[in-house]
């Protein structure tokens, strides 16, 4: 069976709301408008305005209300229309949610999910295109999930909602409409995926490509092309940025001896840098070539289509980096 990521998220929320009356959904336009990106379609009708709650445009306020409700034992799902707007509420995510269980020595747990689209969409400019995986992933107390496929979306969101800790759940707008095959098992309402475990999307032996979210798609396409040129790439879909599955990454690199990281976010202090560090820490001697990093350009996102394309990783970039690790260089005409 095929299912879009949108359906996967929608059914995950639906099933968890029907399983647990403590779960509710709150955010801007989640109810009557059916979600700015229609993720919550039908839920207001089904669960009513007591559990599907439209808020004013006041992220700090409703994120704080969500965290307070979680302190009291409810299980809020807080939707940010996009994660760019989570900056208004980030103090509650970090200081009110992530740290409370620790500061209270376990008295105040915070079973909450913050979710919404993260990173670049298409043509939405600098203020609406930022990826927050590295930022949230830096913070102890949070769990940070980054689904790619429909199975990821369903399994990880269900796990997130059931999890007793605060989870930042980063979706991707450009994947919402994408269809993926889903297994019977994944369609079961009891389905969930383990938090903190990466998935090997494609096995390979020459180079490991570690990536997440939409870049898994690009990396798989790159691997396909590389295969034709005789390079066998292993593609790891992280699924979870925090906890980071260091053992899966290191196991793969110990096999392939080469590593390319791919992310859409800004490079400095990014996910790629951490993956590199984790491999240097644990598998330095296995590396046959420098780790290659492909990331968003180190600039605010431009609007113009040609610049936007240059500002984001492309399949070619991944291929080129992978070849470099195998010491086959294919320089690109200098563009700037």
């Amino acid at each position, binding site marked *: 069976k095929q299912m879009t990521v949108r359906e996967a998220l929608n059914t995950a929320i639906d099933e968890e709301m029907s399983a647990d009356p403590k779960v509710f959904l709150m955010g*801007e*336009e989640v109810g*009557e*408008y059916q979600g*700015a990106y229609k993720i919550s379609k039908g839920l207001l009708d089904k669960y009513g305005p007591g559990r599907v709650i*439209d*808020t*004013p*445009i*006041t992220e*700090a*306020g409703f994120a704080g209300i969500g965290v307070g409700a979680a302190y009291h034992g409810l299980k809020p799902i807080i939707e940010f229309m996009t994660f*760019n*707007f989570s*900056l*208004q509420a980030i103090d509650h995510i970090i200081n009110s949610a992530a740290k409370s269980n620790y500061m209270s020595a376990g008295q105040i747990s915070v079973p909450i999910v913050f979710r919404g689209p993260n990173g670049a*969409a*298409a*043509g*939405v*400019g*600098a*203020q*609406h295109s930022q990826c927050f995986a590295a930022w949230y992933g830096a913070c102890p107390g949070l769990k940070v999930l980054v689904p790619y496929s429909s199975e990821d979306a369903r399994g990880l969101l269900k796990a997130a909602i059931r999890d007793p800790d605060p989870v930042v759940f980063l979706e991707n707008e450009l994947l919402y409409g994408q269809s993926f095959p889903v297994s019977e098992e994944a369609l079961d309402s009891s389905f969930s995926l383990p938090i903190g475990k990466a998935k090997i999307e494609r096995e390979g032996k020459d180079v490991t490509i570690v990536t997440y979210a939409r870049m898994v798609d690009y990396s798989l396409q790159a691997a396909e092309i590389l295969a034709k040129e005789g390079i066998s790439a292993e593609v790891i879909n992280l699924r979870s940025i925090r906890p980071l599955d260091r053992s899966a990454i290191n196991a793969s690199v110990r096999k392939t001896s080469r590593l390319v990281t791919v992310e859409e976010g800004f*490079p400095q202090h990014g996910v790629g840098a951490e993956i590199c560090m984790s491999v240097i820490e644990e598998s330095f001697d296995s590396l046959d070539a420098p780790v*290659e*990093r*492909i*990331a*968003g*350009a*180190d*600039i*605010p996102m*431009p*609007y*113009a*289509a*040609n*610049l936007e394309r*240059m*500002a*984001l*990783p*492309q399949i070619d*970039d991944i291929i*080129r*980096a992978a070849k*470099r690790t195998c010491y086959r260089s294919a*320089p*690109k005409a*200098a*563009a*700037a």
Partner: protein
Amino acid sequence: TTVLTIETSVPFIGHRCEPPSRNVETTPKEVLGFFRDMALMRRMEIASDSLYKSKLIRGFCHLYDGQEAVAVGMEAAITRRDCIITAYRDHCIYLGRGGTLFECFSELMGRQSGCSKGKGGSMHFYKKENGFYGGHGIVGAQIPLGCGLAFAQKYSKDETVTFAMYGDGAANQGQLFEALNMAALWDLPAILVCENNHYGMGTAEWRAAKSPAYYKRGDYVPGLKVDGMDVLAVKQACRFAKEHALKNGPIILEMDTYRYHGHSMSDPGSTYRTRDEISGVRQERDAIERVRKLILSHELSTEAELKSIEKEIRGQVDDAIARAKESPMPDPSELFTNVYVKGFGIEVAGADRKEVRGVLP
């Protein structure tokens, strides 16, 4: 020249202030200018709608048609040394501040000739030399920013003011209340203009605000409720507000207005409001039609002349679009310019830092 005195559609309603007179002075020239300016804005937005549908404009695009009287009436009351800052629904504000159709369409289509060289996009227009400070995508953020402009004006003893525009949805944002408190403490010449088009995206005002009387939401700060579909009322209110702000500090203007389009191009705009409501406003309150009637009833011009103005405008718009379409995309070297004013000659990386690198200027 002749001076006309026209009564506003409805009385102003004041909060902690004595409202200005309903009788607004104007001239035939001004009224005809209002007609032309508003018609031009309307046409530009309708054309943008088409360009979006033919995929020449990408991403978010928020149209202003319906609200033109606010932009135009405000300009009539102030100078270009006064500042304006607004949210993402910014094309017409830009035009009102002296921006050109060509730069506007170029920006919308992401061309080098755009007002932000194609780097900003629909939501990020600016015209600093005429006091327009954007074009902001984060709901509510422009309000403290606008108070900051007013802070600078007062600091520099400019005797000018700032109009910070925001929607009814934005009116619940906490940073509004923070900024307003400081503006009031420090008597900043800040005018908060709430363009109440009655919906924040799909949410009706009363579902987002316990008290949707936005002109009163400053509590201890004065406010004025204005018919935002009546360009003369807007002008009168803005003149009043400017005077007030220079003397006494901040004031809120609630402009009762309406957007004809959906929130952005992805919103049909008809699920959360009835078609009757929309057509009712068009028929009874439309800002351009109001001015057309005024012109005709005062015999300032003829129906035929107005039609020919509208035709001329269509030509201008079509021409600007044609030229914008011909304009090149930004040069790839633009990728790395303007990240900083002063880049220290440092290297900056593209997606693959081993291939695409720039040196910051």
